[in-house]
């Protein structure tokens, strides 16, 4: 029995290709591949997936909006974002809104390991996203006991290496830590990001804006 997934993707060609690709994957059980996220909550109720793959750029209800709806009802359901470009704000906003990870469409053939990583708690992060993460957190003026919401020195260091193009493995080598530790750090960063951006969202909302 494979992992049950549903995919939201507005491009018909890509939908067809994904269907062809995932049809013969034993690890994955593709339950539905949907062109829009207008009925996202009903869909989840009907299919009760283990993982949701969500395209960010979609008409009517975009991926981030759909992600928020999901998070309201299912805080723990893993949601993997699909996107063409990594170097715009989409991925970052998605992570802030509670995405579990992301997958670039050019690496769509890596969908199976990506799903596996997400389920095992390993989320990907690249330099572009890392730069934005760092800029969101205020730089601590002096080393202070890390609380739950600010980045630790190690986490900051890790993000800086990511920005410079280091892979997880290279980071592990550089910092002389296990690869698994790198992943744990990243996961923690994700969580802090979500908490932090939530407080920021409240802050912004009181100012009459919206995230």
């Amino acid at each position: 029995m494979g992992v049950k997934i549903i995919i939201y993707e507005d491009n018909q060609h890509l939908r067809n290709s994904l269907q062809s690709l995932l049809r013969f994957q034993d690890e994955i059980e593709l339950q539905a591949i949907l062109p829009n996220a207008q009925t996202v909550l009903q869909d989840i109720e009907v299919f009760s997936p283990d993982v949701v793959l969500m395209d960010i750029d979609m008409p009517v209800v975009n991926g981030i909006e759909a992600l928020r709806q999901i998070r309201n009802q299912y805080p723990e359901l893993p949601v993997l974002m699909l996107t063409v470009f990594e170097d715009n704000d989409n991925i970052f906003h998605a992570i802030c809104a509670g995405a579990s990870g992301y997958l670039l469409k050019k690496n769509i053939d890596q969908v199976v390991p990506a799903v596996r990583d997400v389920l095992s708690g390993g989320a990907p992060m690249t330099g572009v996203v890392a730069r934005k993460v760092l800029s969101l957190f205020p730089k601590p003026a002096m080393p202070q006991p890390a609380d739950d919401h600010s980045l630790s020195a190690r986490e900051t260091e890790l993000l800086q290496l990511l920005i410079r193009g280091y892979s997880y493995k290279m980071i592990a080598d550089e910092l002389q830590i296990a690869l698994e530790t790198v992943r744990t750090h990243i996961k923690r960063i994700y969580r802090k990001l979500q908490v932090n951006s939530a407080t920021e969202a409240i802050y912004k909302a009181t100012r009459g804006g919206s995230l």
Partner: protein
Amino acid sequence: MPMSFFLPAATLLLCLTFERAFAQPYKAQDSVAIYKMLEEADASDLSGDMDKALGHAREALALSKSKKMDRGAGFALLKIADLVLKKDGAAKTSALYDEPFRIGLRLNDSFLLGLTKHQLAQYYRDQVQYPEAIDSYKQAVSFYRPSAEGHYIALASNDQGLLYERMGQYDKAIDMYLQAIRFFEKENDIKEAANTTGNIGIVYYRMGKKQEAIRQFRVSASMRESIGDVKGLTAVYGNLVTAFSSLDQQDSASHYQRLALQNAEKTGVKHTLAQAYANASSLASRQQKWKEALDYERKSIALYQDVGDQLKLANRFLSLGLIYDKLNDSIAAENSFASAMDIARKLQNKPLFQSIYTSGSAFYARRNNHQRALDYFKFSTAYKDSVLNEKVSANVEELKTKYETEKKDFDIARLETEKKLKQLELEKKTAIIEGNRILAARKEAEIALLKRDEEIKRLELAQKKEELARQELLARESEQQVLRSLQELQIAENEKKLRQRQLERERLLRNGMIALVVLLFLIGWLLFNRFKLRKKLEEKEKLLEVRNRISKDLHDDIGSTLTSIHILSRASEQSLEKEPGNVRRMLGDISQQSQSIQQNMSDIVWAIRPDNDKVENLVNRMRENIGLTLEPRQIQCSFEADENLLRQSLPMEARKEILLIYKEAINNILKHAHATEVNIRVTRQDGFLRMTVRDNGTWKEKSTTYSGTGTTSMSQRAASINGTLRIDGSAHGTTVTLDVPVT
């Protein structure tokens, strides 16, 4: 508004019927001839030809003398005196009346005597010697016989009334006027009676009894209406206008003003009409009907210009200026003042100057041109002083005359006193000799008295002389002062003009400078704009070039790869049944080629983004690439980048090409080198960015591969950014070195 006076004609015409009650040594026809000549003189006088009149009068005098006709000579002399006085008002002609008076006495001719005194009185009147004039008038009246010369008595009385009125002795004036009216009525001369009635009205007006004045004017008007005396009516209506206007009965004033104008038009005399229009304008001004006032004033001016009365014209222009001022037409007002000023200059009339400057000062003050107002005020004051000074001089002149007379009188008196003293001395001596002590003492006292009298008189005279000297000094001083202040004003005016001219020059210079600066600025701006435009065009061209290159890249790389994928797909389709083995290979190619397109696209997009313009960005991307390429193959990697190169900017083209060369090099290692270690370095090497990719690969198949398209495209890419590419292969590995110039 001036009151119009009607002096009886100054000329006392001689065209009268004479009683010939005297025995005459000359013939009747001589007498007729002489009187005819005098009549002709009168006629010429009336028509204004003075020289001709004088010629006739002298002819009459000559004939009278040759025929021993004293009476004719007397009248001829009177006529001559009259004419001479008329020709030259300032001529001292009182002596001219001495001979006719003697003739009159000799002939005991009351008319000749009366007329002589009458003319003398008029002479004094014109010389403003009012007491002498009145005295002469009284003598004339006493000579005239009421039965025969009543008309002349009336005229003389009227004149006396006028003089009393001028001297402010209103009761005497009215007495005289009433006497004149009695005689005029006796003579049935309604015209003159009406005139004198009008004069009584004027006296009442002066006394402030305006209602009584109006009553008199109305009587005068009705008398004049009865005989159709339009000229007189114009005058009396004018007086009524003044009276009503002063009582603020504007309707009545306007009514009489219309009548005055109508009658003035009827007279056909331009002078009268011009004055009537001027009066109408004054009335309209007083009623604040400025437009109407303007209209009348213009008509008046046109008429005065016709008759050429400059003084009146100047006053009219001044009044016109004031009306324009009220109408708020500053330019027209200034023009009017200027016209008045022109005439004043021509006439050199100081009172006129003064009133123009006074009005001008007020005018400029109202327009907040205080400098001008002050200047005009100064001028006005200076002229006022000057006018005053002339009066002072006249007074001094009068004092001098009086002094001279008194001195002469004193001398005569002194001579007489001396004679008397001698007489008294003689009488005293005689008395002493006769032993009459009392008489001698009385004579002695008389002598002392006389001497003291003389002394007093002498002292008085000395005092007067002193007074005169002081007055003269004062007059001269004030005259000099006025002159000086006028000069100072003139100098100040000139200085002001000079300063203004200088200011204007400075202003011109300044404006020129400003214009120049503006022009320079404009030129600069234009040049800068052109520069900016050219720069913009250059940038646009550059951008166009970039775009062209990108589209060429896309077309070359992606277009041809897509075509290739398309062909491969079709070929796979066709080969599916015949050669299934080939299909697998072709599908592999499709997969690999499409992935390469993706990579390419990603790289192009990365290169285009302007925030990736530093070497640092390039290095990061290169390192990132290792994680995706070499790392999964378990190839050991070292990556070094020169820290001081990281902030260096790189143009879009360069970063793209360097990245692609690097990726090609890595690609080649992956494909062909079987390397276990790769060393990558990015360093600075005097003006060059040096990138080296070294592997420890073995050299199987490599020779063929490296001469293939991969290396060719690498070299081309290097050349396109002015870089050099070197590939050094050896048994222990390959080193790819790229040098790119950086600034």
